[in-house]
C-alpha cells in the first residue's frame, strides 16, 4: 500500500498509466452489462456511423462497435492474463530452482533457458496455431502464449536470487539457524515481488501484441471478440474501402491505449525499482 502511494506520488508515468488502465478496467467491467450477446449479429441497424445511440457506430454485421469493444478488451486481457500467469509461474519456479540449488541443476537449466531465449517465438506460435487451425480457443491461446514466454523471466529471477543469496542478511539468517523455507518466504520474497510486478506488466505487453498479431493472420479464435479479431473482421468486410473507418478505428485505438497504459506503468515501476533513484527518493523523504 505504502509502495503504491509512493509510486503514484513520485512517478508521473505510473500515475498516467494507472489512470489509463483504470479506464481499460472500466471497459472490461462494462462488458458484463452489455445489452447484446458478444456474438449476436443483426442486433442493431447496420453500418451506422457513431451516434448517441451507438457510441462507436455499428458494423456491417449489425453489431454495436462500442459493446463489441468491451468484450474484445475483456477477452484480450483474459488471454494475456492467462499467458502471464503461466509464463511467470514457470519462470519463477525455474529461476528459483536454478538460483537456490545451483551446481549441476543450474547448469542444465541455464543451458535450456538460454536455448529457449534464442528460439524465435513468433514462427513457433504460427506453426502451432496453423496446426490447431479453427480449434483454438481463447483459453488455449493464452496457455500457448504462456508456454512460450518464460525463458527471459526465469533468467532474470535467477540473477536476482543469486544476488540475494550472497547478501549479508542471508548469511546472518543462515548462521542464526533460520530454516531455508522461512528465509525464502520471509526475507527474499519481498525483494522478488516488485520485480515480478514489473515483469508481469511486460508479459502483458508481449501477450497482447502476439494476440493481435495472430488474430490478424486469422489464426486465433476467430469466433470470439478480441482486439485482434475485431481488426481482422473489420478488414475482412472491407471497412476501409467502404468508408466505415470507425469499425477499425475503435480496436486500433483500444490496442494503442491498452499497451501504452501498461507500458507507462512498467516504466514507472522500473524507475521505482532502480536502486539509484530509490536512494534519491529516500533522501528526499527524510
Amino acid at each position, binding site marked *: 500500500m505504502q509502495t503504491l502511494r509512493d509510486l503514484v506520488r513520485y512517478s508521473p508515468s505510473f500515475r498516467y498509466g494507472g489512470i489509463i488502465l483504470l479506464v481499460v478496467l472500466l471497459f472490461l467491467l462494462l462488458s458484463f452489462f452489455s445489452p447484446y450477446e458478444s456474438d449476436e449479429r443483426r442486433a442493431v441497424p447496420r453500418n451506422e456511423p457513431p451516434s448517441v445511440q451507438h457510441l462507436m457506430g455499428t458494423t456491417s454485421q449489425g453489431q454495436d462497435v462500442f459493446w463489441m469493444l468491451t468484450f474484445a478488451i475483456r477477452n484480450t486481457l483474459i488471454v494475456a492474463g492467462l499467458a502471464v500467469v503461466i509464463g511467470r509461474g514457470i519462470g519463477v519456479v525455474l529461476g528459483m530452482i536454478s538460483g537456490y540449488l545451483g551446481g549441476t541443476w543450474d547448469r542444465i537449466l541455464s*543451458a*535450456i533457458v*538460454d*536455448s*529457449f531465449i*534464442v*528460439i*524465435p517465438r*513468433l*514462427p*513457433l506460435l*504460427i*506453426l*502451432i496455431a*496453423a*496446426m*490447431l*487451425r479453427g*480449434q483454438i480457443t481463447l483459453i488455449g491461446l493464452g496457455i500457448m502464449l504462456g508456454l512460450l514466454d518464460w525463458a527471459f523471466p526465469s533468467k532474470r529471477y535467477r540473477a536476482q536470487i543469486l544476488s540475494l543469496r550472497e547478501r549479508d542478511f542471508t548469511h546472518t539468517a543462515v548462521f542464526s539457524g533460520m530454516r531455508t523455507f522461512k528465509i525464502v518466504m520471509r526475507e527474499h520474497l519481498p525483494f522478488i515481488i516488485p520485480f515480478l510486478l514489473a515483469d508481469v506488466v511486460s508479459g502483458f*505487453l508481449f501477450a*497482447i*501484441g502476439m494476440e*493481435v*498479431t495472430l488474430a*490478424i*493472420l*486469422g*489464426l486465433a479464435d476467430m469466433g470470439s471478440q478480441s482486439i485482434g479479431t475485431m*481488426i481482422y473482421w473489420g478488414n475482412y468486410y472491407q471497412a*476501409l474501402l467502404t468508408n466505415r473507418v470507425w469499425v477499425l478505428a475503435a480496436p*486500433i485505438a483500444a*490496442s*494503442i491505449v491498452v*499497451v*501504452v497504459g*501498461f*507500458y507507462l506503468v512498467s*516504466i514507472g515501476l522500473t524507475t521505482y525499482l532502480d536502486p539509484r533513484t530509490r536512494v534519491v527518493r529516500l533522501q528526499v523523504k527524510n
Partner: protein
Amino acid sequence: MKLLKSFILPRIVQYLIVIFVGVTLTFLIPRLSPVNPIDSAMGRLTAFQTMSPEATVALRESLTDLYGMNGSMLEQYLSFWRRVLVFDLGPSFTNFPTPVSELIGTSIWWTAGLLGFSTILAWFMGLIMGTLAGYFPNKWWSRSAENTLITIYPVPYYILAFILLMLFTYYWPIFPLVGGARGTPGFTWSYISSIFYYGFLPALSIIISALSFRFIISKALTSSERSSDYVKFAEMAALPKRKILFSYLIRNTLLPQVTDLGLSLGTVFGGALITEVVFGYPGLGTLLLGAINAADFNVIMGITLLSIIGIATASLLVDLSYPLFDPRVRYE
C-alpha cells in the same frame, strides 16, 4: 587456447543444443497436433471429386511418403533430421512439384533486402539519436524525441504498419498498395528505382519501430555511462564534446548494441511476416501466410526451421565476435 576452451567451445555446444531443440520442436508440433495434415490434405483433394477406393489408398500412401510420416516415430525423426541436414523439405503442396527449398530461395531475397537494409539503417539512426539524447537529456529536441518514441515503442507493430498503410495509400495515395517492384527484372534504372519506391513504406514501418526500441536502449545505456568517472574526467579536462561522445562514450555502450544488431539480422531469415502481409510485399512472410492458409505444412516447417537456424547462427556469430570488440572478454 584458454579462450578456445572456456569461451568458444561452450558457445558452439550451446548452438548445437539450440538447433537440436528447434528441429525437435518443429518435428513434434505437427505430429502432436490433433489435426492430421494428411487427412486434411485428403479432405481438400477429394472434396470436389469422387475417387475409387484404390486411388484413395494410393493417394494416401504417396501423401504419407511426401510428408515423411511413414514408419515409427523414431524412424520419422531420424529421416526428418536427414532431410534437414541437406535442406530438402520435400515438395510444396500447393505448388505441387516445386520443392520447398526453391520457393524459399526465390522469396528470401526480397525479405533479406528489405529487412537487412532497414534494420541496419534503424540501428545506426537509433544508436546515434539515443546516444545524443542520453548525453544531452535536458535539451528540447531530446525530450520531444524521447516522448514521441516512447509512445510509439509499445504499440504492436501491426497497428503501426496498418496506420502507415492507411495514411499513405488510402487517404493520401502517394505509395503503391501492394507489390515489390514494377517492370521486368533487370539492371535498369526504372526497375531499381521501383524497388526503392515499392519498398519505401514497408521499410519506413520497420525503421520506425526498430528505431524507437534502439533509441530507448541506447539512451538508457548512455545516461548510465555518462555518470562514470572517465566521462567526468574527460569533461573536466575540457575535451571536445564530440570526442567524448564518439571516441569514448559510444564505444563503451556498443557491446550490447552490436549483440542486438546481430540478433535482429538473424531474424531476417524468419521474414517480416507482418510487414509483408500488410504491405503485400513478396517475400518469406507472404509465402508463409499463403502456406498457412493452404495448410502447406512443408513450407511452414521449412520457414520455421530457417528462422530458428538463422537466429541461432546469428547469435553464435555475435558471441564469437565479442573478443574482437571487447578486450575485457579477450583477456579474461
